[in-house]
């Protein structure tokens, strides 16, 4: 997962990209494989949740998304984790600039 987090005027804006095929049920059926997509993404800073997102199969392949939050400082570490339908997870972190 690629994460860029920047603090400006008290608000941290984050741009992130998760590497995932996001196979929908339709496509998976055609290819004869099991559907698999990210079902939940979350982000924490100092053990506080700053993003909590339940997702469906309709996010794009390798989904890019942006979000913002308050209450963090430059140098804090943001930790993001996704979970997919098959139970795979990936955790990445990045330092807020």
């Amino acid at each position, binding site marked *: 997962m690629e994460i860029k987090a920047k603090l400006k005027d008290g608000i941290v804006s984050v741009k992130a990209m998760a590497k995932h095929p996001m196979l*929908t049920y339709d*496509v998976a059926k055609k290819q004869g494989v099991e559907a698999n997509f990210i079902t939940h993404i979350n982000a924490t800073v100092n053990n506080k949740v700053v993003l909590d997102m339940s997702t469906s199969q309709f996010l794009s392949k390798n989904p890019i998304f942006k979000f913002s*939050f308050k209450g963090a400082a430059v140098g804090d570490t943001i930790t993001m984790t996704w979970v997919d339908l098959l139970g795979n997870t990936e955790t990445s972190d990045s330092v807020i600039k």
Partner: protein
Amino acid sequence: MERRKFLGFGIFAAAAAFVPASLIAEDYRKTKPDAWTAHTVEDAIAKLYGTSKTIEQGVTLTAPDVAANGGAVPVDFQSDIAAKSVAVFQNANPESAVCVFTLNENSVIDYSIKMKMKQSGTITIVVEGRDGKLYSAKKAINVALGGCEG
């Protein structure tokens, strides 16, 4: 077991037990499974929030009028409403729900996502206010090339 190792193990175990609870605040796929299989936007909103009545104000939705690639339609939305959650729906795909954000006191409603659209349709953003009302914004998008094949 040596005392030092034993203490270290205790801290690790405590950390491992603590992490899952803090990682998932509310998994809407588990708490509201029906919302994810609903085929119409109204039905999905009703399954998620109990009512499909929304007020069309207070939410800014930005998306292209014509999307060249339905596999990654950029959708931006902002709002200043004090809210508990934000949900994204569309009526171009077999099911309506795209994603649901749970908010807390640190959240700022300023999101940008990329989503798939199989055909032209309408995107609906619903903001669940702390006052219990639902606020929404809609936008119709023409999709030149459907994106569920990706």
